[in-house]
């Protein structure tokens, strides 16, 4: 390879220099010293470049279209390598200074390519984008959305891909530990049947989207010591009509939002459920609205989210 060639040339240069030196012994030792110094510099440069070459196996210009993966990148120490994020990235605070390149439905390919990334994190379903990046010979990391266990797998896999395998492993392990701790704490406690609401129209009970028995939200709430009232529906989202909610009789209604909400707005939204008076959650006042980003992003803050949910559902276990 290049090193070998350089080595040969070096040897040739070296022997040439020696010959030159013996011919010019008369010219004096200073010339010999200068030549030897040049040789040393060349050698150092050579080894230096092989070192840095090994280091650039790890990507140094990463673009992430997935907020969860962005959080993972920053958490394992690859933050400085991130050059652009998606339009929906919010955390950590550093991303606010980074350029945005669109998201799932509208990735800005031109912008992405103009930033000369050496790794782009994309959704599995963004086939067009993947084709275009492939044509431009830009490496990609393909992300698929799934359950709680997959978050940990992804952390490890992403971490390895960006050259921070150790940090990723540590992070995953610590998350696992925290989750296990929560599970232990709520083990043996009664598990309330919980309606987990992703989204609905503000001010009314229309368009309620609840978590089905699939996906990381379902897993989070299960780990936090509750049973999903729609666990039998093998879909990530269920449109929960009024009749379904009344029929399933949840003991707890848990609304999860990513955006912060003002206090009176929160009270108003919780009060909207009052019309379903026969629902146990409404009767016992166990309607909760959590406005915390960690509960909606399947990323490294998931342990924090599970703790938050567990504390909300089982306050007595944290006394």
């Amino acid at each position, binding site marked *: 390879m290049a090193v070998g060639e350089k080595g040969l040339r070096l040897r040739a240069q070296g022997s040439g220099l020696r010959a030159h030196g013996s011919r010019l012994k008369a010219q004096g030792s200073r010339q010999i010293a200068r030549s030897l110094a040049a040789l040393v510099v060349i050698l150092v440069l050579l080894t230096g470049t092989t070192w840095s070459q090994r280091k650039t196996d790890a990507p140094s210009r990463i673009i992430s279209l997935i907020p969860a993966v962005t959080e993972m990148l920053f958490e394992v120490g690859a933050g400085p390598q991130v050059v652009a994020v998606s339009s929906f990235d919010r955390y950590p605070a550093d991303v606010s200074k980074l350029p945005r390149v669109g998201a799932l439905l509208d990735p800005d390919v031109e912008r992405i390519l103009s930033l000369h990334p050496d790794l782009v994190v994309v959704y599995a379903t963004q086939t067009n984008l993947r084709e275009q990046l492939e044509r431009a010979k830009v490496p990609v990391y393909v992300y698929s959305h799934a359950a709680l266990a997959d978050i940990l797998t992804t952390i490890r896999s992403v971490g390895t891909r960006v050259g921070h395998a150790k940090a990723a492993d540590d992070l995953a392990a610590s998350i696992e530990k925290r989750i296990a701790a929560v599970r232990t704490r709520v083990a043996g406690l009664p598990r309330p049947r919980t309606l987990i609401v992703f989204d609905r129209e503000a001010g009314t*009970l229309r368009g309620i989207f609840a978590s089905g028995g699939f996906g990381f939200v379902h897993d989070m709430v299960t780990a936090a010591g509750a049973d999903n009232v729609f666990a039998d529906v093998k879909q990530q989202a269920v449109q929960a009509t009024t*009749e*379904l909610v009344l029929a399933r009789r949840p003991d707890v209604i848990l609304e999860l939002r990513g955006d912060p909400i003002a206090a009176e707005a929160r009270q108003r939204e919780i009060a909207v459920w009052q*019309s*379903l008076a*026969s629902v146990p959650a409404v009767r016992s006042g166990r309607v909760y609205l959590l406005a915390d980003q960690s509960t909606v992003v399947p990323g490294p803050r998931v342990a924090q989210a599970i703790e938050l949910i567990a504390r909300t559902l089982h306050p007595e276990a944290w006394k």
Partner: protein
Amino acid sequence: MTTGLARRIALTAGGFGLLAAIAILTAPLVGSTHISLRRAFDRSIPFSDNVDAQIFFIARLPRTLSGALVGSLLASAGVVFQGLLRNPLATPFTLGVSAGAALGAMLAITFSWSFAWAGISAAAAASFIGSLAAVGIVYALARGRHRGLSTNVLLLAGVTMNAFFSALILFVQYFADFSQTYRILRWLMGDLDVSSYQPILTALPLMFISFAAFAWLARPLNLLSLGDESAETRGLNVAAAQRIAFISASLATGAAVSVGGPVGFIGIVVPHLVRLIVGPDHRVVLPASALFGAAFLVGCDVVARTVIAPIELPVGVITALIGGPFFLWLLVRRA
């Protein structure tokens, strides 16, 4: 056949009215959950304890009533638009009303407008305003130098509005996140689960106004089908009739869409079926369509919420599954 128009109107109204009544009375009895009617109507159990009663009176009955309301509004608006545009293939959505409504709802959902006034959600209010805006623009474009509304310009303006608003909708989509997009898509497919009587009560005055206008329009619509000039020489104030038809049918459509979203095919399947049964006289077709439309949508909604229980299909899917093949059959038949 030709004698006793009054009797024919009475008979068809009675027949379809009975159908509608049966639909409205039986729909709340059916659902994905089994409930005990006896318990539901047992006054001795306090309402807040009575799950069966809550399911009946909060979940199913408002839903049935909103289905009847939306169905009758869309079906009769369809008849009026077909008469106005002199085209049996026109629908309540041909002239851009639903595109305006969709844009309004989309804006409300994407930018999370959260005012809820008198039990009307932001999306419902915004969609109504959106439909009025679309209608206003189409009307202004179609008002000719001569007194009336040029039906050709109406059609062109309506189609243009549909395209323009669709472009705006795509643009707003850009700002929506995943769950918002999902909710918008669901809204577009129709949702009758109002869970309260408020939206129905709010839409009721609009229904009365539109139906009053439709009653007046019945005979003029017969005349309009002869052509503008022929109608004029038979004593019709064509410009006024066109204005009233356009505004009242748009109002009805806007009200229906704000309650249940843009449920497709009701506005064309029902009028056609009714005409096949009772003939083209609008004095019979209008009341029959209003009643049959109510029964039809309530029926579709029952199917939507029971066919793959406990999952519910959006009602627009059922109307499309019925309407699509029906429409195809119509086109083939006419060819």
